């Protein structure tokens, strides 16, 4: 029902593929990216605030290993085991970082390498070909189904609620941990929960966006917005706009250039980043 409404709406657009009853995969992909982009834009702002870009990259690798393990264990949908694995992986990194006081980039680098190596090792064990996993590396949003779109819609609502309730405390903790704790903010749980949220998002959307570029889609809109925003509200509005704009235009462009949509989206986001970098003036 909702999909019918959406198809009718898209058919109003002046594109050769926007005709009734045809090219449904394009219309599905467009709706999916409209729902995904705000999630990536929003959560990305905090990843850049907290200088976690490398961390979220590692989460993608953890998710990949999870999918391989899930496939081995013979589940129909390796997704659930991948989600479980990447949550454990992200919490593991947080705990090790918290306990050892080792520098975070070392810990993340170690975890990330182990995850990728273990994933490839398990995937190719017994002389199997790696090729079947290529779709996770490159991603294809054009193959998304209406039921998967419904999942994204639910995730969007959950993330919005989470952001309304917890954003202030997360930002406070990122500004000064001791100060935040002196005001009763439980920084450790808050941060662990945020890492887990990113882990779930990256795992779920990896097969659509592609492991190789997913982190860029998370980080670039926020990084671009940071060049011109003066406060958190502008930061969010600009990051979400850039994310939406490059998501939608990326899918449309990829139709004509016949390229992978994930990579096309990221290239457009990168172009906006360069543009805002030039726009950056001395800000008050």
């Amino acid at each position, binding site marked *: 029902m909702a999909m019918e409404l959406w198809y009718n709406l898209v058919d109003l657009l002046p594109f050769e593929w926007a005709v009734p009853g045809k090219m449904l995969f394009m219309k599905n992909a467009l709706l999916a990216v409209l729902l995904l982009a705000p999630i990536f834009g929003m959560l990305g702002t905090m990843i850049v605030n907290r200088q976690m870009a490398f961390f979220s990259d590692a989460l993608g690798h953890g998710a990949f290993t999870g999918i391989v393990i899930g496939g081995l264990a013979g589940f129909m949908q390796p997704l659930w085991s991948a989600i479980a694995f990447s949550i454990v992986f992200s919490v593991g990194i947080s705990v090790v970082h918290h306990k050892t006081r080792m520098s975070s980039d070392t810990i993340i680098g170690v975890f990330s390498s182990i995850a990728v190596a273990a994933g490839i090792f398990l995937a190719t064990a017994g002389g199997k070909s790696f090729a079947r996993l290529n779709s996770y590396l490159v991603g294809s949003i054009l193959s998304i189904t209406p039921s998967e779109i419904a999942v994204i819609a639910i995730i969007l609502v959950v993330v919005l609620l989470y952001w309304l309730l917890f*954003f202030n405390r997360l930002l*406070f903790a990122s*500004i000064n*941990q001791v100060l935040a704790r002196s005001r009763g903010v439980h920084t450790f749980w808050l941060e662990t929960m945020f890492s887990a949220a990113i882990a779930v998002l990256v795992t779920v959307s990896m097969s659509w966006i592609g492991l190789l570029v997913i982190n860029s889609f998370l980080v670039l809109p926020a990084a671009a917005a940071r*060049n011109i925003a003066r*406060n958190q*509200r502008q930061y969010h509005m600009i990051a979400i706009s850039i994310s939406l704009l490059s998501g939608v235009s990326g899918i449309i462009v990829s139709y004509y250039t016949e390229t992978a949509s994930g990579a096309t989206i990221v290239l457009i986001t990168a172009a906006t980043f360069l543009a805002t970098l030039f726009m950056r003036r001395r800000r008050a």
Partner: protein
Amino acid sequence: MNHEGTDMKCVCGEQSCGLCCTRIENLGVRIGNETILKDINLHVHCGEFTAIIGPNGAGKSTLLKAILGEVRHTGHLKFMRSIGIRKERPVIGYVPQNLNLDPTSPTSVLDLYAVCRSRSPVWFHIPDSVKQKARECLSRAKADHLLYKRLGALSGGELQRVLLSLALDPVPELLLLDEPVSGIDQNGLEMFYNLLSDIRKNYDLSIIMVSHDLDLVVRHADRLVLLNGTVLANGTPQEVMESESFKKVFMGIW
């Protein structure tokens, strides 16, 4: 130095005062195998401005963090009423040395106030009532004109005033300040110490400040504590400066 007695009574200027003095008894802090602080005994009285001085690595910031409950410590930390010990922790205002923020961060002074004092999500909407309160709060430290500035664009002195105004909202019983080692110009420092003197007169609170400017501290503090792993000297600025320990630690510097 007449505070060594075990007498539990403290003299309080006003009847309404809930916190009369903070007694630190035999406090010690070890991190790993390293002893950072040991045998710290101090009394901080209501309405007094106590400054902690000492060389780099003396454990000054660690002492503040121990009082905040941020690092594990041995010994006792007692918050006293005019009669007896009180159970609940006092309201503590804390002014950190700096913020963990890259200078390009799109976080305004108003954002900082709102995440600290309000539940309305700053990325979505900050109500006018919160803006009004933020302005009032900042005006206590003569910083209301900085409301819409980015934190990364503030000078060292401006940032310190913003953080002070935040620490005073709600008005704490104990105000802890960790002064930055550098980055504040002389005018800014002078202004900040004058502000602290005003605050001490207008509010009923104890101030403990880690300080790096001996010249200003001597003029403004009621009490100096010379710290280097333990308390080397403790008393009026005059007393501490005339002590042997002070001469040893600061010889050639001051």
